[in-house]
C-alpha cells in the first residue's frame, strides 16, 4: 500500500504521485514507484533547473551533439570530434571521500567512452573546508587519493583543475569531475535502443546492493543522520572499468553494436528506459539473467542498484556472438538480458512474473518541471570604504600571505598524486592557465580549463557567473586556444529555498549572457542542488569547463617568464576593485563588496587581441590575472619560469599601492615579449581597442615593483616561491 510515508521515503510529493497514476493509468507497484522515484529525482529529472537551463545557448557550427546525451560532442575538423562533460559527485564524497570521488571519476569516464570516444583527460574542480580543520583535511586527502586511485589505474591523465577552500564547504565538499574524450566523427554512438528484435546485452561488473537510491540521496539535504547513508555510496573497481573501456571501444570500433548506455545514476532502470525512450521503442528485460553479486536480491534492488562499471548494449541478433567474444576476451560477462520491442513500454520480469510494466516516455520525458518561487539575491554586502581598510605597511608581507593562502598556494601536493602524463599527450603540466594536450598526428592541439569563483557568485551571482565564463575563456586565450564549447556543473543549495533559486536563476542568466558574447555553445552539464548540510547552503558555485582549440601547437604559450630582458606588458586596466578579493579575505578578513565589474565586449576584444598576438608569434609568456591580482600574477610567472626569473615593474596612476597590486579587475592578462616586438604588440592592442601598457622587464632574482622612483615591493623570488610552494603541504603531515 502506497502511503505518504512511503512517498516521503521515495522523495516524491503527493502531486507527483497523482501525476504518475494518471500517466501510467494504474497505481504503481513498489518497484515501479522506485523507478519513478529515481528517474524523477532532481538529480535525474532536472525538475527545478530545466525551465532556467533553456536560456543557455546550445547551438553552433561545431555542435554534433548538444545537451541530452551522455556528453556533448564538437567537431574539431580532420574527421575528429571531442566528447566532454562535467559531473558532480558531491554528496557521496562527503559520506565516503575516497569511494565517492573514485566513482565520480568512474562515472564521468563511462559517460565519455559510452559515446565511442577514448577518454584522454580528466580535470577536477574541488572545494573543501579550510585546511586547518582536521575533518576538511581528511575529506580532502580521501577525495584526492580517490581520484588518483581511479584515474591513475585506468590510465587517463588528470591534467588540471582547481582547488578552493572555504568554510561553507566544510560539511559539503564539492567534487566536480570533467572528462574529455577524442573520437572519429563517424564512430560516435548514442544511447538509443533501435530496431525491434535487437538484443539487449548487459556487460561489465555484476549487480550488487550498493548505491541503491544514490540519485535520490543526491536530491535531499544532509542532516545528522547522513552517516547512515554510507551504504548508498558505491564502491569503484578501476580495473574492471579499464577492461570495460577497452572492450566497449573495441565493439564500437568494429561497428558491432546499435546503441550503448552506461549504468550510472539509477542503474539498470535509467539505462533501459532511457535507451528505449530515445529510440522510440519499448524494451523487455528478464532480471533473472542479470549477473548478480549476491543471492536473494529483489527486483527493486536489482533495478535500482548503482553498482559501478556496468553498461547496456543493444546489438542485432547476428552480432551478439561477436560482441560476446570480445567481452569474453576481456574476461567480462555479456549476457543477453532482453530485447527491443515495439510499443514504447518497459516490461520487466523476475522469476517468470512481470514486475514492471510502464510506458517509458512517462518515466523519461514527462517528469514535471517546476518554476520554483524565486527571491532575487540581495545586493552584495558593501565592502568597508577604502579609507577604513588600512594599507598594510609591509606590502611584501601582504603578498607572501596571499601567496601562501591555501586557495592561491601551489597545488602540486594535489597534482603530483595524479598521473598527469599517461597517454603521452600532456604538453603543459598542471599549473598552467589551461591544460594543453597534443593530438597525435595533428598540428592542432586541445586546451581545457575549469573555472569558478564562488565568493564572486555569492556576492553577485550574475556577475560571478559571467566572470567564470570570461575567465575560463581568458585562460584558454592565454595559452593560445580559441574556446569552442562549454560544459557546466551548477552546485547550489536547496532549490526549495527561494533565495537559492534566486541565485540559480541569476547565475544561469549571467552564464548565458557570457556564452552568447563569446559565441560558444553549452553542450551539456550537470546540476547539483541540495548542497546543504544542517540547514546551511554552500556558496552558489557554478563551475565552468571550456574546451579550446589551438591551431598550431608550435605557437602555444605557457605562463612562465622566458628570458631576462623581455618586456612585461599588462593588458587591460586596473580599477579600485577590492570587493571579493583574495587580498581582502586573507589580509583584512573581509569577504564583502561587489565583485569586480566585467564588460563582456571588452573581454571578448581582449581575448581576440591576445590570440592574434600569440598567432603572430609576438608573445613569449601569458598569464591571466585572477585571484591575488597583478602581484600574484607576477609571482606566478616567476615561479613557472624554468630558472625562476624575477622582474622589475614600475606602476603609476591614481590607485593606492595595495589596490594596484591586489585588485582583481577583469579582462587583464600579463604577457611578456621580446623587446624588439614590444612596439608591434602595443600597436596591435591599440588597433583592437584594448588597453595595454609596458610596465617593466623580466630579469633579476626578485619581484620588484616601484612607483615614481619609490620601491613599493621587493621580494626575492626564491623566498616567495617557498611560501607559495609550502602553503598547502604545511597542513599535511607527509613531506611535500
Amino acid at each position: 500500500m502506497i502511503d505518504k510515508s512511503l512517498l516521503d521515503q521515495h522523495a516524491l510529493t503527493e502531486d507527483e504521485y497523482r501525476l504518475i497514476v494518471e500517466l501510467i493509468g494504474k497505481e504503481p507497484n513498489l518497484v515501479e514507484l522506485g523507478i519513478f522515484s529515481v528517474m524523477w529525482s532532481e538529480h535525474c529529472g532536472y525538475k527545478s533547473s530545466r525551465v532556467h537551463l533553456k536560456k543557455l545557448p546550445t547551438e553552433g557550427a561545431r555542435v554534433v551533439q548538444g545537451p541530452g546525451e551522455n556528453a556533448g560532442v564538437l567537431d574539431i575538423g580532420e574527421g575528429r570530434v571531442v566528447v566532454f562533460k562535467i559531473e558532480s559527485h558531491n554528496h557521496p564524497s562527503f559520506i565516503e571521500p575516497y569511494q565517492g570521488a573514485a566513482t565520480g571519476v568512474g562515472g564521468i569516464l563511462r559517460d565519455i567512452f559510452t559515446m565511442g570516444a577514448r577518454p584522454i583527460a580528466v580535470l577536477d574542480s574541488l572545494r573543501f573546508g579550510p585546511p586547518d580543520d582536521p575533518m576538511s583535511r581528511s575529506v580532502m586527502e580521501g577525495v584526492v587519493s580517490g581520484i588518483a586511485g581511479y584515474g591513475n589505474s585506468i590510465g587517463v591523465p588528470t591534467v588540471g583543475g582547481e582547488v578552493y577552500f572555504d568554510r561553507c564547504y566544510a560539511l559539503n565538499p564539492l567534487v566536480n569531475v570533467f572528462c574529455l574524450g577524442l573520437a572519429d566523427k563517424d564512430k560516435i554512438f548514442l544511447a538509443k535502443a533501435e530496431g525491434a528484435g535487437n538484443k539487449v546485452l548487459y556487460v561489465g561488473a555484476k549487480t550488487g546492493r550498493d548505491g541503491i537510491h544514490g540519485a535520490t540521496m543526491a536530491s535531499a539535504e544532509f542532516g545528522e543522520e547522513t552517516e547512515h547513508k554510507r551504504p548508498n555510496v558505491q564502491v569503484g573497481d578501476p580495473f574492471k572499468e579499464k577492461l570495460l573501456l577497452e572492450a566497449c571501444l573495441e565493439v564500437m570500433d568494429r561497428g558491432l553494436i546499435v546503441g550503448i548506455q552506461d549504468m550510472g545514476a539509477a542503474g539498470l532502470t535509467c539505462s533501459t528506459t532511457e535507451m528505449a525512450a530515445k529510440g522510440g521503442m519499448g524494451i523487455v528485460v528478464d532480471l533473472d539473467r542479470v549477473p548478480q553479486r549476491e543471492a536473494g536480491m529483489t527486483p527493486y534492488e536489482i533495478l535500482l542498484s548503482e553498482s559501478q562499471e556496468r553498461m547496456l548494449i543493444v546489438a542485432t541478433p547476428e552480432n551478439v556472438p561477436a560482441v560476446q567474444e570480445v567481452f569474453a576476451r576481456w574476461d567480462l560477462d555479456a549476457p543477453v538480458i532482453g530485447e527491443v520491442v515495439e510499443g514504447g513500454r518497459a516490461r520487466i520480469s523476475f522469476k517468470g512474473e512481470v514486475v514492471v510494466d510502464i510506458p517509458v516516455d512517462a518515466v523519461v520525458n514527462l517528469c514535471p518541471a517546476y518554476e520554483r518561487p524565486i527571491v532575487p539575491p540581495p545586493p552584495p554586502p558593501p565592502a568597508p570604504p577604502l579609507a577604513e581598510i588600512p594599507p598594510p605597511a609591509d606590502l611584501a608581507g601582504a603578498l607572501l600571505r596571499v601567496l601562501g593562502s591555501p586557495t592561491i598556494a601551489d597545488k602540486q601536493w594535489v597534482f603530483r598524486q595524479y598521473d598527469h602524463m599517461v597517454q603521452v599527450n600532456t604538453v603543459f603540466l598542471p599549473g598552467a592557465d589551461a591544460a594543453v594536450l597534443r593530438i597525435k598526428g595533428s598540428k592542432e592541439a586541445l586546451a581545457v580549463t575549469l573555472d569558478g569563483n564562488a565568493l564572486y557568485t555569492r556576492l553577485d551571482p550574475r556577475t560571478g557567473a559571467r566572470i567564470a565564463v570570461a575567465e575560463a575563456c581568458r585562460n584558454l586565450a592565454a595559452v593560445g586556444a580559441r574556446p569552442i564549447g562549454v560544459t557546466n556543473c551548477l552546485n547550489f543549495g536547496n532549490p526549495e529555498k527561494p533565495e537559492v533559486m534566486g541565485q540559480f536563476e541569476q547565475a544561469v542568466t549571467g552564464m548565458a549572457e557570457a556564452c552568447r558574447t563569446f559565441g560558444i555553445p553549452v553542450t551539456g552539464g550537470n546540476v547539483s542542488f541540495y548542497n546543504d548540510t544542517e540547514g546551511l547552503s554552500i556558496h552558489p558555485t557554478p563551475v565552468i569547463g571550456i574546451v579550446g582549440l589551438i591551431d598550431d601547437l608550435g605557437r602555444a604559450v605557457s605562463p612562465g617568464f622566458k628570458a631576462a630582458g623581455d618586456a612585461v606588458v599588462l593588458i587591460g586596466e586596473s580599477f579600485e576593485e577590492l570587493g571579493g578579493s583574495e587580498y581582502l579575505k586573507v589580509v583584512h578578513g573581509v569577504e564583502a563588496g561587489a565583485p569586480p565589474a566585467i564588460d563582456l565586449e571588452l573581454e571578448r576584444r581582449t581575448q581576440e587581441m591576445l590570440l592574434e598576438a600569440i598567432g603572430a608569434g609576438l608573445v613569449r609568456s601569458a598569464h591571466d590575472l585572477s585571484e591575488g591580482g597583478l602581484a600574484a600574477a607576477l609571482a606566478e610567472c616567476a615561479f613557472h619560469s624554468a630558472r625562476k626569473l624575477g622582474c622589475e615593474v614600475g606602476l603609476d596612476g591614481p590607485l593606492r599601492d595595495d589596490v594596484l597590486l591586489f585588485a582583481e579587475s577583469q579582462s587583464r592578462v600579463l604577457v611578456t615579449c621580446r623587446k624588439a616586438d614590444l612596439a608591434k604588440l602595443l600597436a596591435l592592442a591599440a588597433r583592437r581597442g584594448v588597453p595595454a601598457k609596458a610596465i617593466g622587464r623580466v630579469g633579476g632574482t626578485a619581484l620588484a615593483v616601484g612607483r615614481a622612483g619609490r620601491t613599493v615591493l621587493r621580494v626575492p623570488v626564491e623566498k616567495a616561491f617557498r611560501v607559495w610552494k609550502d602553503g598547502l603541504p604545511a597542513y599535511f603531515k607527509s613531506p611535500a
Partner: protein
Amino acid sequence: MTFGVVRFPGSNCDFDTVHALRDVLKRKTVLLWHKDHDLRGVDCVVLPGGFSYGDYLRSGAIARFSPIMQEVRAFAAAGGRVLGICNGFQILCESGLLPGALLRNKGLKFLCQHVQIRVENVRTDFTRALRKGQVLRIPIAHFDGSYYAPPRVLREIERRGQVVFRYCDPDGEVTAAANVNGSLNAIAGVRNDRGNVLGLMPHPERASERLLGSADGRGIFESVILSLERRGPARRRASAAKKARHDR
C-alpha cells in the same frame, strides 16, 4: 629489429610505449597478448607500465603467473632482451627475473613528477648509447617504487654493477631529497647478472619527445636498438627462445 610490448589487462602505458618505439623511434613494434604463448619472434620484449590485473594484491604479483610470462622467462633465459618499465619492473621482480622488490613510496602517496636519474653503468644493452654519470630527466608515476633488497643481495648487485640508474639531483648528486620514493641506495633501475634484463621505475616512453618536456628517455631505447641491430638480426635469439621452450 622488432619490439614486442606485452598487453596485460590493466596495462595502461602499452600504447604509449608502442607510440615511442614505432612512431618516434621508427622501429617495428607489435603488441603481445597476456593470454598467448607466443612472442611472435620479437627481438626485445617490453613490459609496460600500468596496473596489471588491477594490482589489488601486490604490484605485479598476478602478472607473473600469466601465460605470456612463461614465454618471457624462457626468452630471457635464452639471452633475449627484456625491458620492464614501472609496472613492468615490478613484474620482473615478482617473477624473479630481477633481484629485489618495489615497496610503497616513503610518503605513502602516488607520485607523478619529473625526476633525474644518473646512469651508473653503460656496459649494458640498455645504456650503451649513454654516458656514465649522464643525468637523465625522466618522469615517474607510481605508488610502489621504493626499491628494496635484503642487505646481502644489495651488496651483491652493487658489487656486480647491476645498479644501472640512481635518483639524483639535476647536478648528478645522489641526495636524500632527490630520492623521492625512498629507494635503498637511491636505486631507480637494475639489471640482471647476465645483463639482458633491465627494470626501471621512470618512464622513458614519456621522455621521448622534446614536446613533452624531455627526450632523455630515448637513449635507453636507442641503446637497445644499437645493441640488437649491430649484432645482426636477432633470429638467433628467437630460435634460442623456441629451443628453450622445447627443452622445458
